[in-house]
């Protein structure tokens, strides 16, 4: 089988995970900027992080022939500090031309606070101003329903937004229709406890169809599984879905969305060259 991992925080994973993902059929991995598990003390910490996402991490992935792409932003968990947020947002445009940067993400909300909404609006404006695609994080657990509706309202109120170039991630049964009905792409995140199981993800695909939906593992330093997407593909086959239906969901769909940025290419010859460069 083959698949794209469109959302994984690889900086928090061991190198063995790259080997396992490639062995399972992963053809490209995308890494949105996120919270480090602690608040950074200054904007300079974000500068170093953005360098890691656009320089070091692609070279680590290239050792396994795996194309690595990234999304840049200030995550919503650090958006309460407006001064820090302004400093970080001012830094982002300088990174947007780097070859593996696909857009602005994962922006969004965490606790649905006023400052989070204000910073989300600023990052949406930034994306529109620089003609960038957007990857949106929706809040966890009890905050998800409210946050998803606030996010959709902000996006719909910005006239520069093309919903086809925005993916709203971490949908569940109570938010997937909110996202799809507004014309956005929807991401289903496969987590052991706090988001969605493989069986529930397949339920949603069966109910709502596979159009404008991708699956991702969003693996990070918490309890998460970098092989959640191929395991869900296996579960789809157990449920009687065809090879073609599985391929469409875990490979063709993410390519359809991500290829809207011409930088996203599965150019294996190019990546072999980068592998060799990385090994020097």
């Amino acid at each position, binding site marked *: 089988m083959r698949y794209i991992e469109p959302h994984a925080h690889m900086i928090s994973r061991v190198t063995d995970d790259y080997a396992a993902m490639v062995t399972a059929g992963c053809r490209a991995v995308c890494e949105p900027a996120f919270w480090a598990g602690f608040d950074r003390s200054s904007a300079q910490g974000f500068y170093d992080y953005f360098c890691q996402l656009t320089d070091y991490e692609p070279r680590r992935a290239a050792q396994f022939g795996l194309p690595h792409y990234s999304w840049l932003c200030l995550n919503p968990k650090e958006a309460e500090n407006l001064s820090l947020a302004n400093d970080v947002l001012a830094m982002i445009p300088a990174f947007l031309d780097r070859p593996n940067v696909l857009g602005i993400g994962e922006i969004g909300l*965490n606790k649905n606070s006023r*400052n989070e909404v204000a910073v989300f609006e600023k990052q949406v404006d930034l994306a529109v101003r620089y003609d960038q695609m957007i990857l949106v994080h929706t809040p966890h657990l009890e905050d998800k329903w409210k946050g998803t509706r606030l996010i959709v309202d902000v996006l719909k109120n910005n006239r520069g937004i093309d919903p086809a170039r925005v993916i709203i991630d971490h949908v569940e049964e109570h938010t997937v229709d909110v996202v799809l009905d507004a014309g956005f792409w929807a991401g289903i995140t496969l987590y052991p406890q706090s988001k969605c199981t493989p069986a529930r993800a397949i339920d949603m695909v069966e109910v709502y169809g596979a159009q404008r939906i991708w699956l991702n593992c969003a693996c990070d330093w918490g309890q998460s599984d970098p092989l959640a997407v191929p395991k869900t593909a296996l579960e789809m086959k157990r449920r009687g879905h065809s090879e073609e239906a599985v391929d469409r969901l875990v490979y063709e769909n993410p390519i359809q969305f991500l290829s809207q940025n011409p930088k996203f290419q599965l150019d294996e010859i190019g990546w072999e060259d980068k592998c060799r460069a990385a090994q020097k």
Partner: protein
Amino acid sequence: MDRLHLTDLYFAEARSKLIDLAAFLDRIERSDGTDDFRIKSLRAALNELGKPGPEKAKKILLVLSDPTEKPVPEAGTKSASGAWSGF
């Protein structure tokens, strides 16, 4: 996939989760103290589980969700508890 095949595929797993949930509530009820908003929400969600009709997962997620619409003044914390504290 028909109902029999789905039952074959998932019944053992669903049975296990149901007994785990029952044992959790037994454990809670053997302990000292009173139900907080999380346990109250869980009991309300279980009522939804017993009702006939579609979209049980969606209805339970909504019982466990913050129903308000306006942004809160401050984030306060970064983590989520799994149920709305105002329940």
